[in-house]
C-alpha cells in the first residue's frame, strides 16, 4: 500500500496546532517517546505544559520521556458520529500515567474490543503519525502498570 493510500484509510482527526510550548508532546512519538514537561528542581510533571512548576514555582522545566505506561482512569465508548470519516464506535479514555498520581491524558484506546475495556486496565502508549504530529494512543498492556 502506498503512503497516500494508507493515509486515505485513516480516520479523520482534528489535529493540534504545534507551538514551541507543546512541540515536545506532539512530536515525541517520532522517537517513540511520550514526553512530558518536567521540573528540574523537584521532578514534578507539568501537563498541560506551563513555564512554571506549580509545586515549587521553579522555572527550569524541560521535557522528559516517560515510560508510556498507565491505567484507564475512566472511559467512554463514543457512539455519536461527530465527524465525517470518523466512524463510531470508538473508545475515548482518560489514562492516568504511572509516573505521577495527577498526570492524565485524554486519548483513544486501540487494539481492544470496546466491550472489554475496564477502569483500572493497564495500558501502554502507541503513536499514530498524522502530518506533523504523533498522537499518543494507548493499547492494553500485558505488564501491570
Amino acid at each position, binding site marked *: 500500500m502506498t503512503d497516500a493510500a494508507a493515509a486515505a484509510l485513516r480516520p479523520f482527526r482534528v489535529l493540534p496546532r504545534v507551538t514551541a510550548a507543546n512541540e515536545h508532546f506532539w512530536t515525541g512519538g517520532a522517537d517513540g517517546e511520550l514526553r512530558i514537561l518536567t521540573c528540574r528542581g523537584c521532578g514534578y510533571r507539568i501537563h498541560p505544559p506551563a513555564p512554571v512548576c506549580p509545586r515549587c514555582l521553579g522555572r527550569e522545566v524541560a521535557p522528559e520521556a516517560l515510560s508510556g505506561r498507565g491505567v484507564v482512569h475512566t472511559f467512554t465508548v463514543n457512539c455519536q458520529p461527530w465527524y465525517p470519516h470518523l466512524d463510531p464506535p470508538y473508545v*475515548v479514555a482518560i489514562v492516568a500515567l504511572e509516573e505521577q498520581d495527577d498526570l492524565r491524558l485524554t486519548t483513544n484506546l486501540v487494539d481492544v474490543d470496546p466491550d472489554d475495556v475496564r477502569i483500572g486496565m493497564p495500558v501502554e502508549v502507541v503513536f499514530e503519525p498524522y502530518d506533523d504530529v504523533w498522537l499518543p494512543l494507548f493499547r492494553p498492556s500485558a505488564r501491570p502498570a
Partner: protein
Amino acid sequence: MSPESLERRAVISGVGQSQVGRRLYRDPLALTIDACLAAVDHAGLTLADIDGLSTYPGNMDQPPGFSGVGVTEVHDALRLELDWFAGGLELPGQLGSVVNAAAAVATGLATHVLCFRTVWEASAQGDAGRASVTPGGGGTYKASGFLQWTLPFGAPSAANWIAMMAQRHFHEFGTTREQLAQIALNARRNAARNPNAVYRDPMTLEDYLSVRMISTPLCLYDCDAPADGSTAVIVSRADTAADRPRPPVRIEAVGTALRGRPSWDQFDDLTTMAVRDAAAMLWERTELSAADVDVAELYDGFSFITLAWLEALGFCGKGEGGPFVEGGDRIALDGPLPLNTNGGQLSGGRLHGYGLLHEACVQLWGEAGDRQVPGQPEVAVAAAGGGPLAACLLLTT
C-alpha cells in the same frame, strides 16, 4: 459562615422569557428583546431604570447558536444608559453572570441589572443535527488551548467528557443507568405540566433504556434538548424592593468556587468536578442547610450533572445520588425535594442554566401554574454548570 454575605444586598425583582421551542428560526436578538422587556415589565420597572447589563457567554460566532447576542447588541437595541456591564465566557458557569450582577448591585455599581442568556442552537443546527456544530469539522482548523487535548481523539463534545465522569461514578459507587434514568423521567413528567417545554410526551424507563447511546453510559435522553429561547432576570438592590409589584426573591448565598484544576480531564475528582466546590462555598455563606430547601433546580445539560449537584449540595451523601433518585419519588413534584420542576433542559429545552433560575423564582412567587410545588416553597436552589464550570444560588422568599 462568612462574616457578611454581601450578596444579600441583591434581590431578583422580575423574570421574563421569550417563546421557547425547537427550531423557531427567529432572530436571536428579537427573542432576547422579548425576554428582556418581559422581565422589566414583570419587575414593575421601565427601561430607564435599568443601569446594568450582564450576560453569558457574550457575543461569539462559534459554535453556531451558542451565543450571537452579547451585551453590546442589547445595550444598543434598547438604547440603555448603563453604569455597569459585563459579558463573557470565563465565568463559573452560566449563572456566574447573575452572580456578577449581584456583586455589582451589592457594591453600588448599579441598581437594576438586566441579566440574560439567549440560545438558538436548534435553529443553528437546522436539520443537520449536532454534528453541524462540532468544532473543527474539516478545513485547515487546528486545535489549541484545552481542545487540543480532546479533539484529536474524536472527543469534541461535553457529552464525551461528562460521560467519562459518569462512568467513573458508576465504577466507584455502583450507580446504574436505571438510576440515572430517573433524572430524565422526572424531567419529562414535569415537562408535561409546562406548556413551554419542548418535549412533553410521556417517557417510560423502557423508552430510556432502548434509545440510542451517545457516549456510554449516556444515551440520547441523558442529553438536553437544543432549543431556541431567551431568558432574562432582573437583579436589583434590595433596598428598592418595597416599590416593586411582588415581594423580592432574596439571594441568601451564592457559590462560585473552583478549588481544583480548571480542566475537564485533570480535575482531581472526576465524579464531582467543580460542583463540589461551588456547593461547598454556598453553604459556607449561610446558616441555612440542604434540609431547608423546598425546591431544587439543578443543571441538567446532562442527567449526570444533576446527580452530581444533588450530592454536592448535600441532599444525599457523596456517591449516593443513584439510590437517592431511585424510583423517582423523592424528586417528584409532590415529593420531599421537587427537582427541575419545569422539565429542566432535558425536556424543557436547553436554556443554559437561566431557565432553571427562572423556574426557581417562579416557584417561589407561586406563579408556576399547573406545575406549582405545593405548600408555598420558601427556599430554592438554582445551580448551573458542570465539569470545571459551576455556580449556584440559594434563594428565599
